[in-house]
């Protein structure tokens, strides 16, 4: 069955904050894709299970978003070729300023079109299921962000952002509102951390203990080994800057406990890498914004000249 009801949708605080930040700094409306995964809710042991709630046992967790100006045409038909295939797609969001917090005509069309693309369905992650049969979940989530349309807010310093989340049900062709949990730190959210699955992992490196002093009986093999070593080092460099692959091997096995400072150094280098990356992102974002502003100015110029014709 491809159309299973969600009980609710969860989004992490930083993801939502970053989405709202992106919306509030954008010069116009914004839309894009939502990524994440779907898991079954842990069973609650309560006696008064009514039928309606027990049928909806799925939780969708939004872990990331990507603003994308053009993944559908102006009639709202999604262009599958413009969707990324690598990440699990949950749905999309639309953020429009000064308009009612109700799905619009085009938003309905886009959601309906997107959720019908079964090739973008994601697997429902089910750690408890023993059988290999796993169900698919179509990209049917729609998150709507809006700011109030009343003019009182115009010159005010208070910025109001409202949001609503929906699951689109293809069978009834309708939006069903879903509650949106903002995942945060605290006892109420412990469950989320229990179910946390890291998805940024180190590449599989050949760092097994090189204990066997192998007799190198061929130049080819050494060449291959060296090649492998540089390749491993390159992959490691993507996660941590300036940490040698060779040192990884010492962190395994019985002697590992003597090298805690080595581990700390690995983390340190990972942080350095992230810091450098964020520096680069910051610089390129500044350039993107500069370019966007420039484009806007050009566009206004074109519009003005078109109007004066």
């Amino acid at each position, binding site marked *: 069955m491809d159309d299973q009801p969600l009980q609710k949708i969860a989004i992490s605080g930083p993801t939502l904050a970053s989405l709202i930040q992106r919306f*509030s700094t954008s*010069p*116009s*409306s914004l839309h894009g894709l939502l990524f994440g995964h779907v898991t079954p809710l842990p069973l609650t042991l309560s006696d008064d299970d009514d039928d309606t709630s027990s049928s909806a046992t799925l939780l969708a967790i939004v872990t990331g978003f990507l603003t994308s100006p053009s993944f559908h*045409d*102006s*009639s*709202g*038909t999604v262009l599958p070729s413009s969707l990324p295939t690598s990440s699990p797609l949950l749905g999309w969001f639309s953020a*429009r*300023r*000064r*308009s*009612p917090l*109700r*799905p*619009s*005509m*085009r*938003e*309905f*069309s886009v959601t*309906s079109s997107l959720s019908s693309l079964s090739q973008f369905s994601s697997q429902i992650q089910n750690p408890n299921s023993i059988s290999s049969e796993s169900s698919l979940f179509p990209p049917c989530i729609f998150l709507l962000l809006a700011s109030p*349309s009343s*003019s009182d807010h*115009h010159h005010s310093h208070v910025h109001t952002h409202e949001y609503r989340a929906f699951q689109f049900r293809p069978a009834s*062709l*309708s*939006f069903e509102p879903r509650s949106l949990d903002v995942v945060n730190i605290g006892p109420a959210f412990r469950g989320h951390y229990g179910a946390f699955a890291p998805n940024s992992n180190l590449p599989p490196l050949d760092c097994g203990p090189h204990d066997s002093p192998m007799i190198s009986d061929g130049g080819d093999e050494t060449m291959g080994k060296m090649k492998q070593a540089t390749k491993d080092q390159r992959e490691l460099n993507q996660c941590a800057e300036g940490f040698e692959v060779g040192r990884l091997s010492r962190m395994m096995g019985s002697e590992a406990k003597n090298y805690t400072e080595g581990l700390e150094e690995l983390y340190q280098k990972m942080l350095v890498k992230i810091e450098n990356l964020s520096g680069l992102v910051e610089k390129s974002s500044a350039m993107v914004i500069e370019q966007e502003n420039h484009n*806007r100015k050009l*566009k206004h110029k074109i*519009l003005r000249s*078109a*109007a004066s014709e």
Partner: protein
Amino acid sequence: MAAAGPENVPPFIAAQLSHLLSHFGLTVKVEQMWSSDKYNSTPLDRFTLLIPYCLDFIKWDVIYDAESPNTAPDVIFSPEDDDFHPFHMFPSSSEPANNCLSDWNYKDPTRLLTLIQYLRDQYVLYQRKRVGEVDDDRLTFEISTILSREGIEMHMSSGAEKSEEVKFAVPLLDMNINKMVACCPWRYSQRIYLQVVYPVGRKYMSVPSAPRLKLVSSPELKAVFSIDDVKLPPWLDGMCLAEYLPNLEEYLGKQVLEAVSLIEVRRHFIEALSSPLGRPVEADAVFCRKATFLAASGVFSFLVHLLIPTQFPKQQPAIMLQSSQHFNSQMAPMKSRVMSDYPWSPRWEPSMMAERICDFLADEALNFKRQCSEGQVQ
């Protein structure tokens, strides 16, 4: 909002909107316009349209984006129509309909009109479908008998606090009133509708109650024919619309014909007045409802305003005098009260009516002059 001037609407939106407002078959209004801009109140790229439907209005928000003019506008419908999806009305789609949006051209001023017309047509079907789904035997029967009427519109209103009702707007009289009036100034075709409101039946009611009935016409029609003067025939127990409508239409048709013929009667009356009073200073040449003459009594000159009711000659014209020589403290000319209690008979010939009015004016002029000089009037 001070910024709501037309100069603040981006030119491509202004062109499409003004085309819609001037070429749509019904009177569409813009309720409000505002800007999507976060810091400024311009440019105005969103607005609320009031579109006539079923003798009421539907409110749709049209959302353009001044930042990307190439994109087609989006529409947000009223909260009670949240299951109205104009492009997904019929599942298993053989819908070629998307093309009024998909090849959008913002430079074409007719596009918004095409879109709104399409959406309204879909809305008619949507409401028809909703009403058709109501589980009420009488309603199902009534719909089956009147569905073939051209231009019929229906509306299902349901709210948490309101009881469910189905409203019909039945266009009456297959006559073109615009054509019957010489030199007709009306832009829109004048129609008379019967509004029929059925409460949605509760199963335990044995005798269905009579629907609420009301005649509605376009406001301009009042110049010729006031539907408030029409007494609706009674709705008998167990009656249905198919029985009720033919009698009503016959009766109403006669009334409209008579009302139109009365225009000429009023014209003759104004012409008759001009032999004793001289040519009118001003007169309503189309509907002949108003005429103003200049009169004098000795050296006192004054204007005579005549307001002629649609029921003329059954009802006499209302007369008001306005002095050309006396002004109040605000420098406005002094006026008499509106008089419609002078001697009158609908059976008089127009020349006789004119003569008697002149007699009355001769007396009243002296009164009015005295009141003006004593400052008794406004």
